[in-house]
């Protein structure tokens, strides 16, 4: 088989990675943008989403689609609520000081991870996809009878993977509408540009912060619920999404949502393609290298103004 089919396969895998990564990174970017908080525990909110999804699917029984649908709604809500509680009890007390919140969220990372290990255990557990039809992808080949359509073995995807991409795009569109077209989005953007002036115009900044922290965590949890039928739930699964989200947020320009989505697509697709053709490790190395280059040559990110 030629290169073409492999490339399509790799791009499809990459698109799934990109979709999930975009959701996770937008959550991180939102929190950093509005609150100026670097949330090291973001990957743990992702992991909690997957673990709660397993727990719901496992205890519900019945058709897998039922448990999955409930998890899709409940897991982000529960994780969001946990994040709101963490914001009100920890971050607020630190006055959202940039350095101290980093240390605090590192602490939060270990607390969540260890509590999960103690209750959920060290196993990786699968969640069944609600639907999973295999879809073969055709390819065109110039054979002895001229061009003809063939169905190369191994070239295909599943309906579920396409659904993940669609769902992520829908949610991202929703976040965009929330930020640009609603009153609460307006208030969040005002808080983002000038916290003191937001207060001076009656905006309850602390409540906005709690909301944003909850929303950011819920997005990570939602991304995890989407990926868990493909990847399995494990208490250490938060590391990669955290690293990749940071890479994406830095490349996309700190706090810029369109930049974040663009960078997620770039990193996700190249991760998929490099992983298929070479190795996943090389993909991570190159992405990290790219961050270094961006930080040196374009500190404001690819979409941002260059430096301050």
């Amino acid at each position, binding site marked *: 088989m030629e290169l073409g089919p492999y490339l399509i396969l790799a791009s499809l895998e990459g698109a799934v990675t990109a979709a999930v990564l975009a959701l996770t990174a937008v959550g991180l970017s939102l929190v950093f943008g509005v609150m100026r908080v670097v949330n090291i525990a973001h990957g743990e909110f992702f992991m909690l989403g997957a673990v709660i999804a397993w727990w719901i699917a496992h205890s519900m029984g019945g058709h897998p689609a039922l448990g999955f649908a409930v998890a899709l709604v409940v897991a982000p809500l529960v994780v969001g609520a946990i994040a709101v509680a963490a914001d009100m009890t920890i971050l607020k007390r630190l006055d959202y000081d940039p350095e101290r919140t980093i240390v605090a969220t590192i602490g939060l990372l270990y607390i969540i991870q260890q509590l999960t290990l103690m209750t959920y255990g060290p196993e990786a557990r699968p969640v069944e996809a609600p639907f999973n039809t295999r879809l073969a992808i055709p390819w065109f080949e110039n054979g002895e009878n001229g061009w003809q359509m063939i169905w190369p073995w191994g070239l295909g995807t599943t309906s579920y993977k396409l659904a993940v991409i669609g769902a992520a795009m829908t949610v991202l569109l929703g976040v965009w509408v929330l930020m640009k077209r609603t*009153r609460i989005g*307006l*208030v969040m*953007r*005002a808080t983002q*540009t*000038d916290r*003191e*002036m*937001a*207060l*001076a*115009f*009656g*905006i*309850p*900044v602390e409540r906005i912060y709690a909301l944003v922290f909850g929303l950011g965590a819920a997005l990570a949890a939602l991304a995890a619920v989407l990926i868990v039928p493909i990847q399995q739930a494990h208490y250490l699964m938060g590391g990669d999404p955290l690293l990749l989200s940071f890479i994406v947020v830095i490349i996309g320009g700190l706090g810029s949502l369109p930049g974040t989505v663009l960078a997620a697509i770039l990193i996700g697709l190249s991760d998929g393609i490099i992983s298929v053709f070479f190795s996943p490790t090389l993909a991570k190395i190159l992405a990290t290298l790219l961050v270094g280059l961006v930080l040196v040559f374009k500190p404001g990110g690819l979409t941002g103004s260059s430096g301050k």
Partner: protein
Amino acid sequence: MLQLDKINSGYGRAQILRDLSLTVESGEILCLLGRNGAGKTTTMKTIMGLLPLMSGQITLDGQDVGQLPPHEVPRRGIGYVPQGRRLFTGLSVAQNLEIGLRTRKSGQDTLEEVLTLFPRLRERYRQRAETLSGGEQQMLATARALCLRPKVLLLDEPTEGLQPSMIEAIRQVIVQMRATGVAVLLVEQRVDAVLSVADRVAFIENGQGGAVVPAETLRQDHSIVERYIGV
């Protein structure tokens, strides 16, 4: 009427204001005059609840506003035009005004009145705040504060770096606000600008209150001004 009674405040452990007392009556323009770093901006931030009150009392029409959480202070009717304008960048003129309107749930009629005061803003309505000229930005900062139908208006160096025509436009609006019974606390560097609008002038030095004199007295005798701000 806004009243500060022996207030102490500052940044963290650095105390700036020491037992400062001031009264601004409704329908009056009180000018706060003092050297750079005397504590004028600090006074305004303390009134807005943005800096913690270490001791002392701030009352608005007899009601204590010094202990309120910061976002409640503007809701009581204190409009703030900060030094350096500090508009919500990235947001349009319309959206900046909307934030102001929402503070006290003012209606469409308030918006109309404000836009009548600043017709230029109507022309720039859909433009982003940071694309306006300096003078237009100052108009927007003032308009945003007027959107909450303030009982008290705090203006921190509103004419800093503006052309004479813009300074005059801002001055007109301040005088109009006084006529409608708003208590205006104005910080200005330029003594002549102060004397042309102020009813009374309060001096501040090293975070402490000094003499409070009718502007009329200063117009006749400049020596007090020179003693405080050394021109």
